[in-house]
């Protein structure tokens, strides 16, 4: 099911409440030491936070649609936790790889732009996958079309076969993202 024509059930009150709660949590993280030195709650700060979060929930409701069913699913939280470690491994590997190519005297790069079709179907999944591809070794998402084709600038093109390219660049994230967001 494509998310762009996904019709949300009309439960604006609950959606607004979720958005309000998220904004308030964000505010409290920003002003974190909630108790002051003598142990008294900073009621003024929290009151301002409630006002601002209510404002955001009222104004931004049409722009940010929270699919709150997704937020209470423990399976997707578990895979998100696993994915965090996988992603940080690839981010560090990407940094080391690009540093090696930059510092090598002859710069062993073989750049090119390749076309890959993804199996992900929702917009959220595609956006997350594009960001993850950008952060990992030698690949940079340039464009994503509406039917799921990724154009990727690759610093060291190893192969031009479509299946081979997809295996090298895409498949290692798709498996996790499909479990987290779809």
């Amino acid at each position, binding site marked *: 099911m494509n998310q762009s024509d996904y019709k949300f059930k009309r439960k604006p009150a609950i959606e607004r409440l979720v958005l309000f709660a998220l904004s308030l949590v964000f505010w409290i993280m920003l002003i*974190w030491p909630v108790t002051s030195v003598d142990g008294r709650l900073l009621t003024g700060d929290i009151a301002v936070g409630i006002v601002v979060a209510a404002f955001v929930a009222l104004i931004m409701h049409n722009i940010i649609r929270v699919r709150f069913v997704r937020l209470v699913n423990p399976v997707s939280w578990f895979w998100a936790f696993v994915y965090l470690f996988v992603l940080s491994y690839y*981010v560090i590997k990407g*940094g080391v790889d*690009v*540093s090696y190519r*930059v510092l090598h005297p002859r710069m062993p790069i073989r750049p090119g732009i390749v*076309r890959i079709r993804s199996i992900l179907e929702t917009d959220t999944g595609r956006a997350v996958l594009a960001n993850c591809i*950008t952060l990992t070794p*030698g690949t940079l998402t340039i464009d994503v079309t509406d039917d799921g084709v990724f154009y990727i600038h690759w610093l060291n093109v190893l192969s*031009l076969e479509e299946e081979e390219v997809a295996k090298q660049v895409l498949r290692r994230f798709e498996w996790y993202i499909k479990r987290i967001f779809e």
Partner: protein
Amino acid sequence: MNETIGLILFVIGVLFDLFGCVGLVRLPDVYNRIQASTKCVVLGTTFLLLGTMVWVGTASAIIKGLLCIAFVLITSSTAAHALSRAAHRSGVPLAEGSVIDQYADDLQGEPGYEENES
């Protein structure tokens, strides 16, 4: 102990920042430079923020550092995507020695896309 770990993280972070900026100066075209920016510099800044979290060690520093890391990761990759797409759309060619450009092949038919003259 915390200070030693923090110092090690600082040194790693500054080294990655330096490598990224060397790549910015050395690499041949816009897309390769964007690659160097989004990998090395983001990784270096992440290490610097981690070092600050370990060094200071209070709850508020850790929470703000984690927020900062999340923002830097998300915004820099999105900015790299926007910049590279804009550069390709405005007709910046790939460097000498590039292997393939399937994006330009697919964009030829679209209205509004001008082939670059070079």
